[in-house]
């Protein structure tokens, strides 16, 4: 076996180990179904909507918050316009004038985390949430979150289950599959008390979080990831409300997707540098021993496998071209044989099948938890596209980290 293939086997073993670990966790504690039960108490809630040039989606986002099944006198929506150049300000002011629950603030542009911190300072609510202005909530999402807080008083922050809003193109469908197994992953990370990010769309915090660990930081443009790391550092519990659904719009062009994911991936690497003491540190439980190391391994393994595949494919194409040039044989289709005897059935083939089966199982379980449907076209989009696009943002993120260059929001 060549050394390159050995490296691929290590990557495959790691990927399979991680999948098996999560499946064991699933069997130990399966996600509960949604119930009609209501919270015992309705704490006051403020949902912050930081926005920068969101004229197209802001109104829809705020309307989805106003439609939440929650007592109106205990829910406020705080729009913080972070120096938009478009009609965001006008829309925000109009909505604040129209709805008593809505408050609007305009500030100089300073980045999302400054808008969030501004909003936190502007409210006295017991629970403070965030909703990116490109996302929309299901009407019962907040009830589910509050019920989850009631179920475990030690929980300090909650993440929702995120779905892609009306996926249509192949790229959006690919992301919808990714978000679906993300729902499974998040629930399993909850089981393991190892959630690694509190995403912008509708993560809800108890006010004490900010008084205990401080406000949001710039954190390499991934403040939602950094605050999760910081909460682990302080021993504050993060949970997942898998029945609280949030719909988010996703990048519609490959380049926009690559830029978004480069920011996320580079943020992960740079936050990992800042919190490197958590890696393989038993004090941080499964977060330090499993989730962080395997996330890094997945990052490095993704790059390695992509480069190895590129090298092997390139070598093959080069040898075929050289052969055509040397032999002057005209291009022709190779002879095909129908029997399995001619198929190369080595061990790697079966390990890859096992890893892909684990991924497929995670998608099925995520689909079951999210009560969503995924068609053949979406599965095709995921398995055909993801392997080609993901290595690009992984390599960009690695390069950006090596050069210590901050990623960009847009």
């Amino acid at each position, binding site marked *: 076996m060549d050394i390159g293939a050995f490296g691929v086997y290590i990557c495959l*073993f790691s990927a399979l180990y991680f999948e098996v670990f999560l499946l064991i966790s699933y069997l130990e504690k399966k996600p509960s179904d949604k119930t009609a039960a209501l919270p015992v108490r309705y704490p006051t809630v403020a949902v912050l909507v930081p926005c920068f040039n969101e004229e197209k989606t802001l109104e829809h986002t705020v309307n989805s918050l106003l439609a939440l099944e929650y007592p109106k006198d205990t829910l406020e929506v705080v729009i913080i316009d972070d120096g938009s150049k478009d009609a965001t300000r006008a829309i925000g002011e109009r909505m604040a004038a129209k709805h008593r629950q809505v408050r609007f603030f305009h500030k100089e542009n300073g980045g999302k985390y400054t808008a969030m911190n501004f909003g936190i300072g502007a409210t006295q609510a017991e629970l403070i949430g965030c909703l990116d202005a490109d996302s929309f909530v299901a009407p019962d999402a907040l009830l589910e979150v509050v019920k989850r807080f009631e179920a475990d008083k030690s929980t300090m922050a909650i993440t929702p289950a995120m779905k892609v809003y009306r996926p249509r193109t192949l790229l959006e469908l690919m992301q919808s599959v990714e978000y679906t197994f993300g729902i499974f992953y998040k629930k399993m990370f909850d089981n393991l008390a190892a959630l690694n990010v509190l995403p912008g769309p509708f993560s809800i915090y108890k006010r004490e979080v900010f008084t205990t660990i401080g406000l949001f930081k710039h954190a390499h443009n991934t403040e939602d990831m950094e605050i999760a790391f910081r909460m682990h550092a302080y021993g504050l519990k993060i949970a997942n409300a898998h029945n609280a659904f949030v719909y988010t719009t996703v990048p519609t062009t490959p380049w926009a997707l690559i830029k978004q994911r480069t920011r996320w991936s580079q943020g992960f690497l740079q936050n990992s540098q800042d919190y490197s003491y958590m890696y393989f540190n038993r004090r941080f439980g499964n977060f330090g021993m499993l989730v962080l190391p395997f996330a890094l391994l997945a990052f490095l393994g993704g790059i390695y496998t992509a480069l190895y595949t590129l090298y092997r494919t390139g070598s093959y194409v080069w040898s075929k071209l050289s052969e055509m040039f040397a*032999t002057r044989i005209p291009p022709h289709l190779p002879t095909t044989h129908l029997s399995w005897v001619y198929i190369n059935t080595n061990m790697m083939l079966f390990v890859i099948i096992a890893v892909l089966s684990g991924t497929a199982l995670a998608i099925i379980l995520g689909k079951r938890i999210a009560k969503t449907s995924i068609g053949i076209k979406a599965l095709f989009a995921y398995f055909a596209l993801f392997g080609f696009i993901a290595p690009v943002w992984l390599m960009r993120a690695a390069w950006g980290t090596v050069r210590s260059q901050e990623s960009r929001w847009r």
Partner: protein
Amino acid sequence: MNWQRYILAFGITAAIFVTAFYIASKLDNERIAAIRATEDSISIDILSSETQFELLGNLDCNTIAQNPVLSDELNSLASQLSVAEANLGDNNPEVVQLKKQYSLLEIKDYILLQNITEKCKTKPVYVLYFYTNSGSCNTNCGNVADILTYLRGEYPGLRVYSFDYDLDLSALKTLISLHNINGATLPALIINNRPPVYGPQTLQSMQALIPELATLATSTQATSTSGY
């Protein structure tokens, strides 16, 4: 933290890897068995042809000409062997054994062809191709093999017998010494019993070396695949 979960996950992952290894090995064994079965079948066919040849004595060449051509089966066997070689390696004892048996079958088929040619005055077109897997001729040997495979596809009547020069087989060594093949300058080609030709070839140079190809039907013409 639950360490048992870590250990259990490791155990299951290792078990999946062992299962993958087992399935791959099992299929390799099945492939070897399939190749062996094909070789046995070809062996019986050659023995049958030889017996028929001896029985008929005063040979009825029409009957012989109607016999199935074995080179097709030998060629498919060669493809199966190359997959087994890629999976298990050149030096795998099972692969080496199968290659020896394959080479013997080729030599027997070649001898039968010579006998029939002599008695029936036919004009077959055949190539004995000697290669080596050792470093000296990697690219050149691969290229010549590809040209021959391509020509076989174009001219189904062309008979190609390929031999690993380094195979430890006395019958093969005899064939090599009969044709004075020099192992230092492989690949070597014996075309219709003419003196050996060495070195790299292009499709065009190979076609020039085998002018008899013009007498063979191409795969796009009406299929009369008898090589005799």
